[in-house]
């Protein structure tokens, strides 16, 4: 089976059912499928968040995500890998990001999916601006995300 990557930046929502199908259709080699969905929460730092605007760097974003997939494939034996990240305006409970990984081995599928999310959080050019009841504000990067990403360094 040829490795298949699916990397997509889009304003529209994605379907978990359709994306799961993309990972598994005609795939009898990979016993393990790990998926992550990041969803918009209605609270952040103690404030109710009404909506979110996701800005990105068109052109670089797709390259950065593809580079993360290539790195993951160099570290683990993976079948199919998918990353979808939404941009534009989102409201609470909206899906933001999808990461899906298949592998013959569950340990590699789990590691690769978590690696992709940790690396994406610190290296893919997305920025969130929140609208709370009081104001608009840019979301600050979190040191915990940096720490999580550093765990994967050689």
């Amino acid at each position: 089976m040829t490795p298949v990557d699916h990397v997509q930046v889009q304003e529209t929502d994605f379907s978990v059912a359709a994306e799961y199908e993309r990972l598994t259709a005609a795939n009898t080699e990979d016993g393990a499928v790990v998926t992550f969905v990041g969803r918009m929460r209605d609270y952040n730092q103690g404030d109710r968040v009404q909506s979110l605007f996701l800005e990105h760097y068109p052109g670089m974003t797709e390259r950065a995500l593809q580079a993360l997939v290539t790195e993951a494939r160099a570290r683990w034996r993976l079948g199919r890998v998918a990353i979808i990240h939404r941009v534009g305006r989102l409201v609470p409970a909206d899906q933001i990001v999808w990461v899906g990984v298949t592998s013959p081995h569950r340990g590699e599928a789990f590691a690769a999916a978590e690696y992709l999310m940790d690396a994406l959080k610190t290296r893919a050019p997305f920025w969130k601006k929140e609208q709370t009841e009081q104001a608009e504000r840019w979301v600050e990067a979190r040191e915990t995300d940096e720490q999580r990403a550093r765990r994967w360094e050689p």
Partner: protein
Amino acid sequence: MTSAAEPSTAAVTVLFFARLREELPQPRLHWPWSEAGTVNELRRDIAAQGNDWAALTEDLLVAVNQEMAGPEQTVKPGDEVAFFPPVTGG
């Protein structure tokens, strides 16, 4: 002296994103750049315009030609250089 200039091989395209884009006087500019220098030299040149441009601090992230770059990476005429705050996707 920069924003009205058309792109040319003797300049670089500079992009700003997110909070930084809002704080600076303009979201992108074409900056004269006839020889090779570093990311950090480019940043200091632009920040030296003063006022709001002082927001272009050294703790920002940088991409050269759409790949993450360090402060000492070389910038050549024609490159696309982007400055932005730490990313918050996912």
